[in-house]
């Protein structure tokens, strides 16, 4: 069943769709992982008052942030200060443009999808730097500088991990990658398809670790080290701007989880089911959502358990361990691809 819609109707649908696609995972992450999983791991219940079992807590928090006073530090650079949160959130939204949700349910079918995604994920670094500098606060500046170094350092392992997937799939197109995983075969057996998490396991692990760092989550959260920098580059933000950073953090987590699910776990496809049926357009998003939740579970589980690495240890880890492993992964993938 295809819908014939006027262009303007389609546009509205797309805007609504991307808003839901970004905010729904973000909100779910905040509730399930931040409020409940973290609380249960720490022997406490978490928010229970707002709504049944505290499910409306996020809405309550949104309302609280919206009604706060708009404060600027006196010496802050006004324009940059205002712009920084929007940059971060924009990059999260833009990543969803190329993530496929079903055989036909996608926003843009770009042949350079993977490339765009990796480029867009770097845009948030600019937002962080802007926030750190414009806050006119030494702690924020230090947080911003640390963040810049960290985010740039961990871009490389992420890119290199994805290169392995691209070699296997022979395309940069996200939809094609999903289809290759669904319809592919591992050494002749086509039952499970060819989810790249099996063949590219090393790449998957490297990608997850790099994602943890890109999101500045513990153990890589030096830029927002609470006990030292009091949330680093976000210290001077309150009210709506802080809410945007907050949503941006979880929306980016959702975005990276979506990318991981698409590239490694087979996206919206389910094994043993055909990948071009029309009803997959409705089931696909749900499947993708559940895979996103799984990846996010791994990310947040690490977050609540590990202490944080020091900045130089963090950099050493990226440059001396992750990048060589990712490079080795590429070499091995290439050899195997040519051999088989």
């Amino acid at each position, binding site marked *: 069943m295809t819908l014939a819609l006027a262009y303007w109707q389609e546009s509205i649908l797309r805007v609504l769709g991307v808003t839901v696609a970004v905010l729904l995972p973000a909100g779910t992450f905040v509730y399930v992982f931040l409020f409940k999983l*973290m609380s249960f*791991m*720490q*022997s*406490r219940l978490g928010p229970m008052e707002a709504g049944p079992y505290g499910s409306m807590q996020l809405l309550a928090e949104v309302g609280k942030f919206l009604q706060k006073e708009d404060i600027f530090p006196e010496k802050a650079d006004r324009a940059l200060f205002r712009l920084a949160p929007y940059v971060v959130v924009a990059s999260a939204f833009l990543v969803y443009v190329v993530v496929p949700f079903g055989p036909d349910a996608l926003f843009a079918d770009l042949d350079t999808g993977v490339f765009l995604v990796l480029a867009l994920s770097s845009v948030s670094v600019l937002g962080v730097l802007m926030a750190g500098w414009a806050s006119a606060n*030494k*702690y924020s500046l*230090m947080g911003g500088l640390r963040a810049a170094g960290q985010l740039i350092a961990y871009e490389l392992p992420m890119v290199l991990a994805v290169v392995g997937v691209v070699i296997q799939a022979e395309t940069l197109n996200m939809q094609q990658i999903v289809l290759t995983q669904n319809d592919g075969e591992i050494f002749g057996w086509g039952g499970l398809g060819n989810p790249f998490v099996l063949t590219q396991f090393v790449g998957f692990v490297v990608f997850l670790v790099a994602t943890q760092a890109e999101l500045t989550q*513990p*153990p890589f*959260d*030096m830029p927002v*080290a*609470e*006990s*030292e920098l*009091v949330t680093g580059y976000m210290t001077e933000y309150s009210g709506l701007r802080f809410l945007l950073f907050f949503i941006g953090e979880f929306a980016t987590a959702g975005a990276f989880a979506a990318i991981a699910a698409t590239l490694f776990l087979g996206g919206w496809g389910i094994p043993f089911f055909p990948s071009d049926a029309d009803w997959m357009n409705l089931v696909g998003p749900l499947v993708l959502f559940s895979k996103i939740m799984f990846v996010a579970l791994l990310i947040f589980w690490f977050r*609540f*358990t*590990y*202490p*944080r*690495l*020091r*900045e*130089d*240890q963090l950099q050493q880890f990226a440059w001396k361990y992750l990048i060589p492993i990712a490079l080795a992964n590429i070499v091995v993938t290439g050899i195997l691809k040519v051999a088989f």
Partner: protein
Amino acid sequence: MSVIDRRELSALAARAADARVNVELETEGMTLNIGPQHPATHGTLRIIVRLDGEQVVWAEPVCGYMHRGYEKLVEVRSYPQVNTLINRIDWLGSFANEVPFILACEQLMEIEAPPRAQYIRTILFELSRISNVSLGLGDAALQLGAQTAAFYAFRDREYVLNLVEAATGGRFHPNFDRIGGLKDDLPKGWIDETKVAMRKVRDYCDEIETLVFGNEIFEARTRGIGVIPREVALQYGLSGANLRGSGVDWDLRRDQKLPMAWDKCDWKVWTHPDGDSFSRLWVRLKETYEATLIVDQLCESLPSGPVMAKVPRIIKVPEGEAWISTENPLGEMGYYVVSKGDTGPFRVKIRSASFNNISVVPWVLRGVYVPDVITILASLYFILGDIDR
């Protein structure tokens, strides 16, 4: 040199020091204020650091934000009133604050508490050690980023605080010790509850050992950081786990004869030769575990009898001077009590452990990175009330 010149000189030096630290952004290096409001400092401690990039070139703690003037206040109070006051010096291990003062007064009065009181004092002393240090361990993990461990610390401390409340009436400020013994005897069923609670604390220690100390990132953050060699530690008067973490085998519970019950049970003193942050925290963990064993043994062998010796209603301590120090949770805490035969002390010098522990900060923080500042402070483990009195 006459007094006036010296005062002027000192005022000039102080103004210069203030001017140094008030410069906002210098060309070489940045001066950063850690505190007084800051999640990492356990209270209102301000540390001024001058940074070169991320390295500290010069650090100085500024204390006194919580100075309450205890040594002046006790001069107008009677001995039982002083007891209430000194509970609040180290507020996490509060029963332990009272004990050296009471023992000093008893030494001057030449009386000794009955055996049952000595045992119960020791049990409550070790319970305050457990509640203080277990929080310190969870807090150290929190400073390093592992938020979960701090919640476990609070959860498991509750068992000990409930015990203290059941026996003394106060979770944090028991005010239970009296010159000559204790205020009351233990309630019924307390011994059994204590045994259960000690088992839970031991489980907590094991949990922290695997979750925190076994973590590679924790080790990478604490090993080799903030090494304090033995000689420096002795010169600065570091005590407690800080000294034993530098390899000095000295524990005031074992190494002096006091009318308390530590020599009536079997326990071990833990030391670590490295002198870095990991060793200090590790010694604290082992001491907490050991304290539970001490409490168990003393509960088993608690003698019966009165808990209060015969003392007059109005306590007048005879003229003299006495110094008693004990191995408090934070280190060596002692009181030098000068009495003129009155109902209250003439002068009390409070030697608190954290004062010496933090005086080493300018020495140890040179050349470390900013994140390591937090690690070192967490491993030295101080309480503001103890530094500032």
